[in-house]
């Protein structure tokens, strides 16, 4: 037997399905690129409605992600670190928005936050606040659909993190909250970042819950996916252009963020 180090060989049994998987994911993108109306692209890009929808998409997805982080990280901590009766049930409930068709999620949101909804009617009567058909409603719909991605990623990171660091912090005088902010959170920061990226991407692509809960109105609730869907009704090429814009912007942003993280750690 030779003891020399050989160039690592990738087993064919892994390489073939990996290649097929990649092709399957990338081919539809290639389809979009091939059918894109490149000659009219610059003109379509500068149409005011496009930029309005793009900006609204980026803004709402970002705010929704922040909302998910603020609420989802503590929820993930609760699931990962605190023993309480019914924890398994709660964990299953957290994933409900993943399995629920987004349109149904939108209806459910209306039943709670709508003008006649359980909380929505109270909000309307007490503060005169209505969420449907508002930009805040878009954020809410996106957060509802995207939050499980964050919670699952962060809970996984927390379970992977050694809880003895938290014990060490306790012996040094840190209470549970301080331990969470000073030790736990920095330890799982990569997990939180990964979860936030997933969450943001999901929020950016959100369609069903948004159109159901927040409706569709340019500049207020019409995000890129809604614009794409409506463009499909009349103009396939316009829909392709809008999709490519959304795709390009999100890929650029994600790549830039990733470089920053890789650079900082």
């Amino acid at each position, binding site marked *: 037997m030779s003891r020399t180090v050989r160039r690592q060989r990738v087993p064919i049994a892994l390489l073939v399905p990996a290649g097929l998987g990649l092709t399957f994911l990338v081919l539809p993108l290639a389809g979009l690129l091939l059918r894109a109306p490149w000659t009219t692209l610059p003109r379509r890009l500068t149409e005011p409605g496009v930029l309005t929808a793009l900006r609204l998409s980026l803004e709402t997805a970002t705010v929704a992600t922040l909302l998910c982080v603020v609420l989802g990280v503590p929820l993930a901590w609760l699931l990962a670190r605190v023993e309480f009766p019914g924890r398994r049930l709660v964990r299953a409930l957290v994933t409900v928005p993943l399995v629920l068709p987004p349109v149904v999620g939108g209806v459910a949101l209306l039943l709670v936050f709508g003008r006649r909804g359980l909380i929505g009617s109270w909000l309307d009567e007490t503060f005169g606040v209505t969420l449907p058909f508002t930009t805040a409603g878009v954020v809410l719909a996106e957060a509802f659909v995207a939050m499980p991605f964050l919670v699952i990623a962060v809970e996984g990171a927390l379970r992977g993190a*050694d809880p*003895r*660091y938290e*014990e*060490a*912090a*306790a*012996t*040094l*005088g*840190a*209470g549970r909250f*301080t331990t969470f902010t*000073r*030790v736990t959170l*920095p*330890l799982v*920061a990569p997990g939180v970042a990964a979860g936030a990226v997933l969450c943001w991407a999901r929020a950016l692509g959100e369609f069903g819950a948004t159109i159901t809960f927040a409706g569709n109105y340019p500049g207020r609730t019409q995000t890129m996916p809604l614009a794409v869907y409506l463009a499909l009704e009349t103009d396939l090429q316009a829909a392709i252009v809008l999709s490519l814009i959304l795709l390009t912007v999100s890929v650029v942003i994600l790549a830039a963020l990733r470089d920053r993280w890789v650079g900082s750690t």
Partner: protein
Amino acid sequence: MTALLDAHLVAERDGFTLDVRLRIAAGEVVALLGPNGAGKTTALRVLAGLHPLAAGHLTLDGADLDRPDRRVWTPPERRPVGVVFQDYLLFPHLSALDNVAFGPRRRGADKRAARARAKEWLDRVGLGDQARRRPRQLSGGQAQRVALARALAVDPALLLLDEPLAALDARTRLDTRAELQRHLGAHPGATLLVTHDPLDALVLADRLVIVEHGRVVQEGDAATVTARPRTDYVARLVGLNLHRGRADGHAVTVGELTLTTADTVHGEAFVAYPPAAVALHPSRPEGSPRNVWAATVTGVQRHGDNLRVQLTGPVEVAADVTPAAAAHLGLIPGRPVWAAVKAAETRAYPA
């Protein structure tokens, strides 16, 4: 000397019960020594507040920290206790300085004061120039010293160390042990060192408490414990043969064998002697040795410059012989030999 720590630790863990009484004076270093699974780490966790006390009490510096019968319990972050964990658990996202400053900061010092204090401690453990490094940039020995500085920086009344040298290689361990001895000597509070390494215990501790199966089986200073082991585990640790029997003056009966000893004891007694005191002969020796019996070789291992021979017979015994003697005797497992021990080399004491 009044005890700074006075504890009766009763705790349950996975169907295993720990029941240990501990008293440690200010400035005293006690080693909790025992085999794996004896409950040493559980005892340490109970003292730190990381594991609940089922019964008993825990009083430190005059304050009841834990007293289940009175429903008194102090969370870990409010105990004047510092812990050096087995693999140190330095926070990977903080510099050495911020690791050490973490405790003072949490206990009320402002950022600047906490850092000044941390710097002082890093200097004291000789790592002042490594303050800005992250834990993964430190060597094992350096990480151990940072962990020690971190635990001491909060001025704990009780310092707990869990196998502080186990993660180090043999060479680093030697240096670090000497260094650790110096710092433990300077610590004004009580110190409990959990270890399964008798050398750590003998070098670092003023007093040894030996636990087996969750109970204290023996305690005392190093000289007493090494001279008069009371369990097979302790005897093995200190390298002695140990038998328990009935004494009547100079004669101790162990099973079928009666050993003559220099000491005078009556009633239940232990007899101890070093493996080097056991002489082996191919046939029954004539003359002086009073304690002679037939035995069978069960194993031979290298032991320093000599060979350690395991024997079975009326008693299980280890004997140290020179390689030359071993060759002469043809010591292979199964070989019958005669074992002889001089009475003057045995020690007998009441059980």
